[in-house]
């Protein structure tokens, strides 16, 4: 009886793992299957002659590299902005008691209840006026609005985890607030800040709607894929999908430890 129940439990866990992994395996299979796999019917579920030729052909299409570079630029800028604006706010939330603190927290959570369409549409008009339209910088600004709340929450939970006493000890020994922060807190917080930065990067890298609305020629990878989707052959679509998936999954793997810190804090 117990053995049977354990078997059911284990089967459930394995089945759910398969449910998550299978679509990724299959898109990789389709993207790496080479010329033969594209026209094969019925399809084989094993990588018979996997090759990078489809992916290579995809990367050789005009505009892909350009879009890829734009994506990296926008995501990097988004990362820098989110940390530059978010980490100080996170530090303030973690270290000070002040009026308006809970109002600020609420505001941060509320921004998550805003549909992106609401922001991106009028920004098209403003950005044209400001010369930010159709530039990775403009896309990065909108993405920062998405990523900033997460950067604030992650960094505040980080700074809370660093004992205040360490900082106070540094003040006693004559460090100014800034020095104490730079010499004591920052080195301890750096890995977590890097994690928050990577989240921001991934949020920007994955975003489709704003990137598509705010660009015409200087498209990011997601925007480019969306616009050429309907006229692309199947294996190119799959190659594009795989190209989107691989970096972000690798990045999230690197920072998986910090995923839960953020949401534990957000609910308190």
């Amino acid at each position, binding site marked *: 009886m117990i053995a049977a129940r354990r078997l059911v439990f284990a089967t459930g866990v394995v089945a759910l793992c398969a449910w998550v992994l299978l679509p990724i395996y299959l898109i990789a299979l389709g993207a790496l299957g080479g010329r033969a796999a594209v026209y094969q019917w019925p399809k084989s579920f094993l990588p018979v002659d996997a090759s990078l030729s489809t992916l290579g052909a995809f990367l050789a299409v005009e505009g892909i590299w350009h879009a890829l570079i734009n994506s990296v630029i926008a995501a990097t800028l988004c990362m820098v902005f989110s940390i530059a604006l978010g980490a100080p*706010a996170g530090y303030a939330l973690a270290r000070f008691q002040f009026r308006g603190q809970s109002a600020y927290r609420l505001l941060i959570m509320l921004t998550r209840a*805003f549909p992106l369409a609401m922001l991106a549409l009028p920004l098209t*008009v403003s950005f044209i006026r400001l010369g930010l339209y159709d530039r990775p910088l403009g896309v990065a600004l909108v993405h920062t609005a998405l990523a900033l709340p997460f950067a604030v929450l992650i960094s505040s939970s980080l700074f809370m985890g660093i004992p205040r006493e360490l900082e106070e000890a540094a003040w006693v020994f004559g460090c100014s607030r800034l020095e104490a922060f730079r010499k004591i807190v920052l080195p301890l917080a750096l890995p977590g800040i890097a994690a928050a930065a990577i989240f921001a990067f991934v949020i920007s890298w994955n975003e489709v709607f704003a990137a598509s609305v705010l660009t015409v020629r200087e498209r990011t990878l997601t925007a480019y894929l969306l616009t050429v989707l309907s006229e692309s052959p199947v294996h190119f679509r799959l190659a594009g999908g795989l190209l989107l998936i691989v970096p972000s999954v690798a990045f999230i793997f690197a920072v998986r430890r910090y995923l839960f810190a953020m949401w534990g804090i957000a609910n308190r």
Partner: protein
Amino acid sequence: MTSAAEPRAATAAPAQAPRGAAARALRAQALPYLLLAPSLIFLAVLFAVPFVQTVLLSVTDGGRLSLANYAKMAGDLNFTLSVRNTFALVLTVIPVQIVLALGMAMMLQKLRFARDIVLWIWTIPLAVSDLAAGLAWFAILQDSGYLNSVLYSVGAISDPQAWLSYETPSTLFLGIAAAEIWRATAIVLVILVAGVQLIPREYGEAAEVFGATPWQRFCRITLPLLKPSLQTALILRTVLAFEVFAVVYALGGRNFPVLVGEAFVWQHENQDYGVAAAYAVLVMAVSLAATVVYLRALRVPREQQS
């Protein structure tokens, strides 16, 4: 902070120092606000301003107040369809995701080995772009895709079947729902797992001592204490689900109109910003209404808040 600085200023300061100490105390008081200011200003500029602009854009027509954009939106062929499709998706996807994520979180609690690796695998879709998720499911469901290959090899079909065309709206809907469930259950799971970790183990152990079955413990202890996390997860997921767009586009193209997709078409192709704004306001209103409902329905008692 201030309580530590003020007494020192009052007692230890010699004749000329009070001004400096007071200034320092003031600065310490201002510091948190200075640290928050950049992010606040940024969010104000990128949230408040576009918000007002969108609302204005939607209710003006040629510089005058009018509801013409809304009339145009409601009169469009795809409007009713996109409302119905979006709501059908949200109402199908969210309950499945909540139940699935709750089940997964409970399984993780019982798991005795390989917990970390299982947790990591289950959270992989979190990193996957909605466009890429749509494309992964496209690989499975397209005419010469993997689903048809399996059906063919077991003899269920003899020729490739179309699942995603406009002639098969129900399977197209199921495909999109599956892709959405696949992609976005991970975020619910992460929020719930973080919430479960905050529940003291003693509660469950005490209930076990008094003879509560696992199911009773789940219903009477875990679920009520998980309410704040459930609330967060529901709000976040519902808002994002009403914004569903890229998954739909990757799987069905224009065959399955949804609200944000229509906003995109009006903005990008028809260049009619007013109607696009009207759609955006509609999505916003629906999201806000859902948020209010959740806040009411899952009210967290005061003592559980901090």
